[in-house]
């Protein structure tokens, strides 16, 4: 490899990523390319030093953190048991409901005051379905005598 490294290859070297063998060989033997990589890496290093100039006093920070620690550590068991809370809340609600007599022993549910019961709603549905006045839903022959006529499309 006789040409100098491309910008992409310089970037790869500065980023510390894997170089192709030919690129690595060139870099090892070319002073100019090595200087280019070193310049950019050095500049980034200078910027890091600049940032580190702001760093706090570590001893003071440690003391402040230790002063702020709560008394207990939340254990994995306790963290993992969080899902139990809503389940227990629902269970507790059911126990209270049963205790207040809302739930009946036979498993049926007493409707809230002013609302129709399940039986009343079912009766209403039966009545609605038995109404054959709806166009297209007329009962053809409740006794089944007219079925042959129906299937023969009135031809016989």
């Amino acid at each position: 490899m006789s040409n100098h490294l491309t910008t992409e290859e310089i970037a790869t070297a500065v980023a510390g990523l894997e170089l192709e063998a030919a690129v690595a060989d060139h870099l090892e033997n070319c002073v100019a390319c090595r200087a280019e990589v070193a310049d950019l890496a050095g500049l980034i290093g200078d910027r890091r030093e600049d940032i580190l100039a702001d760093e706090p006093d570590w001893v003071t920070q440690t003391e402040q953190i230790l002063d702020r620690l709560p008394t207990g550590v939340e254990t994995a068991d306790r963290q993992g048991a969080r899902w139990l809370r809503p389940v227990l809340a629902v269970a507790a609600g059911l126990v209270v409901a049963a205790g207040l007599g809302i739930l009946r022993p036979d498993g049926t549910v007493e409707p809230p005051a002013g609302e129709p019961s399940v039986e009343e709603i079912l009766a209403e549905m039966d009545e609605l379905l038995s109404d054959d006045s709806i166009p297209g839903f007329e009962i053809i022959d409740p006794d089944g005598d007219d079925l042959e006529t129906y299937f023969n499309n009135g031809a016989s």
Partner: protein
Amino acid sequence: MPPTRSDLSTDDSALVLMARNGDRDAFGELVRRHQRRVWMVCRQYVGADEADSVAQDSLVKAYTKLGSFDSRAAFTTWITRIAINTCLDLIRQRKREGLRVVAADDDEELDVTEQVADSEIDPEGRSMQLQAVDRLRECEAGLPERQREIFRLRFYAEMDLDEIAASLSVHVGTVKTQLHRAVHRLRRELGDVR
């Protein structure tokens, strides 16, 4: 056999175990080992003014969550993730409140009398060095967010590629690609700065 104090000199997992059982000194040792990394990470997200307090918040939060630390993972990766999440929570909260977090790229201009003082180089050389660093800061601020984030975690927080990937929950290939793009773009934009 539970770890003893003499075991604690090298092993983070043993320190975590002790700290979980209420040993504050053990947690203090963990803080000493990782506080610089945590601060450096916070510095990249929330800027110099808030880095210290957010780093402290992150370490206190880590203490309260030690119970959920899975010792199969590296403690340093776990704590870094907590720091990043704490920073992002703060940034989101500030956005909701209509405030702005002064991120690292919004820092004030460098103070030439204090920053990057290298006594080995002459004043003219130092001035050029400062200009170059300032130019890098500007170019860095113009990088796409993900590239900038990865660039800073790699070079300023000195995290390795796998750690960055684990901390950001991305594939290591993504980290490599974004890092390369960031450095390439900076190289192009900086030109011959030194």
